[in-house]
């Protein structure tokens, strides 16, 4: 039986893991390699490392962090942030990532999705979508949530799938960091529109939120950051509660 995945996300700034609310007010949460192995030991099914500053000047900081994290991590490892060209993706794979996540660059150049997929396989390409409620539905934002695109999130998820994406990482900007629950309406709309797995992100606060996003949102995986870093929710305890609620989980982990 295929289980639902619990993914721990590390937002990285200048080589350190940080966490903010609605992409602002960043707080230090530790060393990426240490955080990643601790989360994996605790039962995380996957690790995502996002370089949230991602300026060209700190590419080497990111690659160093990817290398040291990959060295002792034996669960799937996704890296995102600042990947604009196939060369950027290749460098991140070379440093030990199993998948890359692309966001802004995929919106401006959808062909990049197919280029990376052709060379590294679709399974290695995660298209990250940051979306916020709009008058007509959900609008896609880029550049770390700063720039609106006028594009519809569901439409864009479909197009990204057609271009060769292997998974969609869908973040609700309205819920990010609020711990008020995932946006199940957004997740369900996208999960129902594409044939590839959808990872729900933004708003995780309690075990009940995860149950809801798997049941109501029909997510294939759910991602969280702050509740794991600061020990609000212990991953193995979370998984035990989800199992009790009837959600298939990798267990024991």
């Amino acid at each position, binding site marked *: *039986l*295929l*289980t*639902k*995945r619990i993914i721990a996300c590390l937002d990285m700034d200048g080589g350190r893991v940080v966490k903010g609310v609605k992409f602002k007010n960043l707080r230090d949460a530790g060393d990426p390699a240490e955080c990643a192995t601790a989360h*994996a030991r605790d039962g995380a*099914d996957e690790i995502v490392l996002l370089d949230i500053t991602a300026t060209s000047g700190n590419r080497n900081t990111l690659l160093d962090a990817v290398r040291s994290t*990959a*060295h*002792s991590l*034996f*669960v*799937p*490892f996704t890296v995102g942030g600042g990947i604009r060209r196939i060369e950027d993706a290749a460098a991140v*794979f*070379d*440093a*030990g*990532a*199993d998948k890359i996540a692309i966001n802004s660059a995929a919106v401006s150049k959808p062909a990049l999705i197919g280029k990376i997929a052709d060379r*590294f*396989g*679709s*399974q*290695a390409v995660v298209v990250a979508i940051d979306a916020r409620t709009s008058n007509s539905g959900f609008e896609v934002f880029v550049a770390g949530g700063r720039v609106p695109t006028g594009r519809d999130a569901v439409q864009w998820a479909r197009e990204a799938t057609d271009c060769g994406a*292997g*998974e969609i990482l869908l973040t609700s900007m309205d819920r990010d960091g609020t711990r008020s629950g995932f946006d199940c309406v957004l997740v369900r709309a996208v999960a129902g529109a594409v*044939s*590839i*797995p959808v990872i729900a992100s933004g708003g995780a606060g309690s075990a009940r939120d995860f149950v809801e996003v798997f049941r109501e949102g029909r997510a*294939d*995986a759910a991602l969280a950051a702050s509740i794991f870093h600061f020990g609000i929710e212990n991953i193995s305890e979370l998984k035990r509660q989800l199992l009790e609620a009837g959600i298939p989980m*990798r*267990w024991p*982990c």
Partner: protein
Amino acid sequence: MIAIVDYGAGNLNSVKTAFDHLGAQVSVTDAAETVAAADKIVLPGVGHFSALQVLDRTGLRKALLQATSDGKPFLGICLGMQWLFEGSEECNDLAGAGIFSGKCRQFPTSVKSPHVGWNSLIVQEGSKLLRGISPDSFVYYTHSYHAPVHAETTAVSEYGLPFTGAVERGNIFGVQFHPEKSGGVGLSILRNFCEL
């Protein structure tokens, strides 16, 4: 020395990292001579079945088949396992090694594809590669095509239908999942391979 065959399909770092972690001597290679000189061979790979064409063009196919018939332990991972079968619907023009009968096919449309994530492994008794692995262990998969269940299947997973998670005959082993990304269970399987 374990040769990890590099034919340009996907990322071999994680396979190498896992064997390094276990203290095994590995060499990542695209040379038929290195394959011939190795004690054991790992054929990894993710992506499209057509990537396996490289094996035919470079003489690696011959070296790999020679190694398997010489009795060297051989482990195909993901696409590397699919190569051990007759072929795949993903690329009908390209023949696999044909060591195991049957062809790899797409999943039914009733399930999302690719099949991504941790699935349980129903382990049959008597497998050398999977010795000590609990019957309902979870392993990480990411693939769109699957190999049929077979007389020599040693572990089955289910996704829309039952398919081959692991297969073996004598010195030849294949796993559809990624042991290098399957936590402690995966490392135990790779350790078993090292200790063969």
